[in-house]
């Protein structure tokens, strides 16, 4: 039997407001444990929450960027459960009236555009972090993160493969980075993801028994866990077994999911409206203002690159996939207006090195002006294209200006005719056989001689001039 996979994602993203969502504490990542705390986020007796307007604004912004309807009336609810990282023993969240709902994201999967529905975007507070020290019977709690604003983005069960889930996550991250509401760093926990997956016979419109997977530390883990779970579920059914609705934990090292709890053990969160917070009436003018000030989003930017710069859709897609990369690219072409040339350098050389070193655009030393400058020097014939690659690697690693590198390493291209003629004579003298071959009509021999000249000059000879001079001298 052929099965269809049905996947839905719940993504939690920390908003980078200056202060927490219901108190004035800093949201800064790191810091000594329990130093970004006050009576309010510690859940001391008698304290009350006050909503951070910026957090609401960011949630609206995210909702708009994800093509959602923004509620005109929204409220906060309490989600009640006991856990030591949750000082009030309830999380202030949103239950039935989220800030945004009914949106979508478009992804490019298998050459087709797929629209993935967004059920809702709601605002809530983050919990703290438990620290379990090995070999000790008690755990420690760090409440610095408690009360950092989070948005939860729930997708419709529209995703049909682990690949699509991965594309969806990348697109979502890209959009949220574009609108500058979060840095979406999974390793710092500012983006977290839970997935729901079920399978059903192809053609069926009834959902299968769904499984929730937790403890996913990277997009790659999401993809791998879904691939594993897809396979596991199919095997259970093919072996005549029955799936149970449950929550499973992804074990990254073993590459498997392990059952955590079944539906029967699921929490009853006893949601009810938080009486400490007034319902929010989201003013239409405010929403319109936020909408008007939304920056260009990745899809629009991609389209612009194709239209304005004449880039292939693929290139445009790669360059716009991250705002930082795209900004790097744009700054570079503002200094050196050859979009295609810059695109090639960015996509091939720069991204290649980034991959090699495991760096993000934000972390590299190379500046856009430096790439532009290097291209200009190349155009002037000071360095050859081949040398440029060497210069580029050096710039990437050291952050030095191209002129400095060229000078330091003596990489200036030899374009002096007399000098090149002297070298050419030497090469001709040393390779009589090749000279003879060329004269006998073997065009290939010229290439060998050119190569010898480049070798002689350690690549610095102006390749065009070398060609011309050799041809002339070989008559």
């Amino acid at each position: 039997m052929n099965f269809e996979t049905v996947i839905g994602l719940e993504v939690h993203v920390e908003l980078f407001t200056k202060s927490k969502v219901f108190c004035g504490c800093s949201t800064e990542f790191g810091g000594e444990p329990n130093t970004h705390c006050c009576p309010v986020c510690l859940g001391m007796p008698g304290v009350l929450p006050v909503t951070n307007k910026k957090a609401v604004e960011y949630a609206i912004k995210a909702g708009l960027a994800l093509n959602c309807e923004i509620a005109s009336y929204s409220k906060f609810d309490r989600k009640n459960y006991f856990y030591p990282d949750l000082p009030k023993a309830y999380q202030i969240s949103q239950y039935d009236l989220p800030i945004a709902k009914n949106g979508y994201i478009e992804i490019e999967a298998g050459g087709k555009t797929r629209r993935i529905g967004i059920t809702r975007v709601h605002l809530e507070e983050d919990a703290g972090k438990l620290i379990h020290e090995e070999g000790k019977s008690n755990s420690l709690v760090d409440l610095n993160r408690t009360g950092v604003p989070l948005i939860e983005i729930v997708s419709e069960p529209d995703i049909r493969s682990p690949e699509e889930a991965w594309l969806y996550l990348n697109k979502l991250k890209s959009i949220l980075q574009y609108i500058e509401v979060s840095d979406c760093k999974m390793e710092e926990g500012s983006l977290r993801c839970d997935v729901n997956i079920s399978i059903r016979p192809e053609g069926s419109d009834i959902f299968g028994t769904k499984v929730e997977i937790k403890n996913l530390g990277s997009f790659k883990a999401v993809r791998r866990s879904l691939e594993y779970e897809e396979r596991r579920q199919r095997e259970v059914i093919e072996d005549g077994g029955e799936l149970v609705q449950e929550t499973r934990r992804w074990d990254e090292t073993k590459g498997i999911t392990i059952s955590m709890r079944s539906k029967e053990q699921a929490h009853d969160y006893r949601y009810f409206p938080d009486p400490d917070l007034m319902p929010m009436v989201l003013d239409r003018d405010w929403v319109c203002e936020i909408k008007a000030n939304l920056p260009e989003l990745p899809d629009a930017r991609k389209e612009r690159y194709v239209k304005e710069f004449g880039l292939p859709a693929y290139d445009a897609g790669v360059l716009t996939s991250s705002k930082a990369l795209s900004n790097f690219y744009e700054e570079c072409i503002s200094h050196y207006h050859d979009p295609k040339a810059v695109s090639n350098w960015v996509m091939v050389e720069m991204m290649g090195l980034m991959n090699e070193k495991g760096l993000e655009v934000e972390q590299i030393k190379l500046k856009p002006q430096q790439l532009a400058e290097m291209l200009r020097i190349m155009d002037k014939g000071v360095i050859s294209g081949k040398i440029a690659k060497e210069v580029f690697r050096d710039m990437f690693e050291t952050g030095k200006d191209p002129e400095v590198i060229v000078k330091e390493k003596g990489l200036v291209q030899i374009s002096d005719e007399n000098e090149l003629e002297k070298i050419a004579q030497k090469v001709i003298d040393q390779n009589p056989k090749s000279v003879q071959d060329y004269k006998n009509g073997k065009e290939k021999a010229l290439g060998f001689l050119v190569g010898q000249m480049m070798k002689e000059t350690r690549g610095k000879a102006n390749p065009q001039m070398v060609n011309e001079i050799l041809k002339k001298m070989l008559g």
Partner: protein
Amino acid sequence: MELYRLTIHEAHELLMKREISCEELTRALFDRIRIVDYAIRAYITLDEDGALQKSRVLDERGDFTHPLAGIPAAVKDNICTKGLKTTCASKILENFIPPYDATISARLKSRDAVIMGKTNMDEFAMGSSTENSAFFATRNPWDTGRVPGGSSGGSAAAVAADECIYAIGSDTGGSIRQPAGYCGVVGMKPTYGRVSRFGLVAYASSLDQIGPITKDVTDCAIVLNAIAGHDRMDSTSADMPVPDYTLSLKPDVSGMKIGIPREYLGEGIDGEVRHAVLNAAKTFENMGACCEEISLPHTEYALWAYYIIAPAEASSNLARYDGIRYGVRAKDYSDLIDLYKRTRSEGFGAEVKRRIMLGTYALSSGYYDAYYLKAQKVRTLVKKDFDRVFEKYDFILAPIAPTAAFRIGENTDDPLKMYMNDVCTIPVNMAGLPGISIPCGFSGGMPVGLQIIGRPFDETTILQAAYAFEQATEYHLKKPCIEAGGHAAFSRDNRCKHSSDFTEREIGVDLGAPQDECVKRRNVPNGKGVKA
């Protein structure tokens, strides 16, 4: 001069004239506490050193311009006071010293109030008698065999027994007004949102409100002036201008229309209580107001809806007392869940547990619509009842409770009977309205409170009405006599022997037997003074 007897405005005048010092006043009150508090037990924590030190600082500075400057006050033990133990009369917070001040504590301090200590209450403000304190029961100064009411029983008893000049209480279903009524003092629950709740340990957040308990209406207006107003730390506090409430102290109700709800005077209401309220209505009519019977048809449902909403909110509000970060943690536990279970089983008293269970049940999946949501709808109907009445009437007169103070232990075995005691005060919390309790008579020798209910944010009108009534009567001048033996002596059958403690005055209305036949004996604990 018995300085402890002074009202705020009297003490203020003496301080301004330098006839007394703040230290003398403060010492007089602590001396008074030493004499009477073993019988009353109003305080959980006393801060004599802190209070005296503050009084000396104030004396040195000599600026008593603010009416509360240098006036010793008692604060209910569910209001956070920085550095001063705040227990909510619960074992679970027995050792809790807040690292911060409630907004109201900060406001009182900024007005140079002298905070003497923290008063006893029903644990987490859940109760109507102060018997639910985890530490001890407070006694009614008028008869130490009786309860002072609750949950702000310590605050009301402290004011009635002159153990402070005024006190701060909190009112979720009547917890200021009912004890004020039982102890024969003035107590006001302001409109929900009028006074910041920041730092008030939450019981039922949508109903809790802080208010003053004072010796007269003038003092009530003075305290309200100091504590009312918007607070950016409390999103539910109203960002509205605060009038000068002392300007409403005019003995004038002529032309005012008063509604008297029939639902508050029917079955279950003690005859003498009813009589006192109707007498009060007559007093108002004599002053030129016009009283009419009105109906608040959803009154009977308010109580039951309250006992869904308040416990539901409480079940969530009290979840934080888990023994992890502060408060008391059980000693022996095997794992995390066991730590929670033992800490909470040992830390909370029976009534608190009962309400947590009620609330947890009401919010459970599958029951939410039937209980919590339904109760919220009832709440809307209760509010609409009042809205309709206030289109025509300036304020409402009603009893504070079906009876005067009952005997200690009388209702402890029957939670439902205890809950019924709040039937007259709960609808006001459900509708978020301001209400004041002022003394209006006696039943079996125990004070009876008159409840005046006003429009939202119209504390001015009810203060004016209360002031007018106070000017026309002398109930507020009556003082209990606290005998050395530890029980209060004044009742009509047992007159106080100490003339210095009590000077009998002619009071304006007849306190004779009730006219109505339908007195329910079950609500009249000892039948004393009621000929049914």
